[in-house]
């Protein structure tokens, strides 16, 4: 542009106020944004937490909780790393619902497993109460 006009006059001062252009943020397409891995992991753990509770798997109770807790921790991570508040908040809040649901379903699972255990024990005669 006008960069060569006053080279000689401003040999010592390289500044050229006339050539200054204000900053224009370069638009970023949504495809170029980094993938939100922590959000993805959070959803997986959340679903796992719900599944472990609903399905009669021979797993320890604490592992049911564990995966819901991990889901919440990864949710927090993705919350901490989000860049676009409006867009990401929606997704993350959705992801957050899954582990919360996992926690809410805990009582039902416990009831059913405990009932089963009770029946089994009393049937076998190991019941001493």
């Amino acid at each position: 542009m006008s960069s060569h006009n006053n080279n000689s006059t401003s040999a010592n001062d390289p500044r050229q106020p006339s050539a200054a252009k204000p900053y224009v943020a370069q638009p970023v397409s949504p495809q170029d944004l980094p993938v939100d891995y922590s959000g993805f992991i959070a959803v997986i753990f959340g679903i796992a937490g719900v599944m472990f509770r609903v399905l009669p798997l021979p797993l320890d109770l604490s592992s049911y909780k564990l995966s819901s807790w991990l889901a919440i921790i990864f949710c927090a991570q993705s919350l901490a790393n989000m860049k676009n508040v409006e867009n990401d908040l929606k997704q993350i809040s959705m992801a957050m619902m899954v582990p919360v649901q996992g926690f809410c379903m805990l009582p039902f699972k416990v009831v059913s497993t405990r009932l089963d255990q009770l029946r089994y024990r009393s049937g076998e005669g190991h019941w001493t109460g």
Partner: protein
Amino acid sequence: MDLSSFRLLFLLSLLVTHISFSHVLADSHFEGFDAEEDDPVEDDILHHHSIPSPPVTQSDSQPLSDLETKSHPDPNPVPTSDSPSQSDLQKPSTTSFDYWDEDEFEGLPIEQPPPEPPKVTETATPDDPESETTSKPQNATAPKKSFTVEIACGSFLIVFIVNYFTGKRENENLALAWAAKFATKGSIFEKNFSLLGVGEGEDSPLLLKEGQTVFKFYASGRRYCQGLLATMELKSRHDLISRLFNLVVPCKDEITFEVYMNDEAMDQVVFAVAKKKAAKGMQKEVRDLQRFAGLMPTPSGRKWVVDELSVISESKEVAGDLITETVLEQVFGDKAFEKYGKNFISMHFSDQHPGLLRKMLLFKFALPDANHMADITRLVALVPYYIDLIGRYKLSSQARSKTEAARVKAAQEAYKELQNARQEALQRKKAEKKKMLEEAEAKLSAEAARKREAKDRARQMKKAMPRMKMTRAH
């Protein structure tokens, strides 16, 4: 990024399993410890239950005593008086209440921890129904269950949140320290650019924050260039998980300067300097370097950059002209590099950058911590120095014709590629159109057949009608 998350996940799971194991150990100790004294109490409790079952004495030989004891550590046997009132049906609901309870009180685990570790039922859950039933009433007052997961995860979450705020502050301080050193009054950028900051006007903000780790600084209004954008990519200090991961795989705070050169101010130059290993990677991966330039051998009989660095250039002439005495003396020479160059990562000048602005100078440095910002002063001074050097630089006619030929060839190839892509797209479009037409035709023909059928039916009806009429007329 994903690798980091998975590794962390693995670490976390290890931690959790470790904790649970230690609890199991504690459990067994406790069982052995007071298995005997608790028996009478257990008896007492169990008698209240209406479930018909053999007496406790029978179970003495069995490992059942283990299981019973688990319920005993509960210090208050008082609520046992409640147990007779409970029917079998109510029991499960109380259990659920007990579990629900534990979630409810996750916030105040400080009071509970002492009684609970021995009661951890991690291993015992499937085979201690009576401990559950007997302890149910007790649980109503003092929940008997493992809080390990809650405590571990809850405290991690709290630390995470605290770290979020402290880490955020740290990153901001680092970025501000940089801006204070290089972009305030009387500093290097203020002397070189007439417009500083991302906004317009006199007191526009110097830095633009994107997310928690990226800070941008913009400057414009200088000869030879349209503008300069410095992007600081800092460590994810605000994110505890990344932070832990960075303990294993360390990374650096980086600052990248992009200088957008004026079209007429930059000759055909493709040139890069980087650490030896990185240079090899750059030569293979960065497109313009791969196409136009090659690794330069160290020229004999001349002072050159330190051995740690290697130069990638389109021609010897360019490399020789851009590595000047001044630069060698200031930064890249044997003596200076040790002192001033340790934060240097790479620089890359090219008139063939992909994207809208093709003529660009890229500088990449590591950022020192906030108190040692002065360490990169000489590196930052390279930026205006090279803007002027490149702005004034003109290739010799011989080199120029060579580079011209290479560029024409590249342009032709690009054009061919574009043509091919366009043709392919055209063909695909054609095929799609054809398919659509065929589909429409098929649809049309189906419709026509249906119409014909309807017509036929109508005709047949018509044929039948008169007869009916005739019969009716009779």
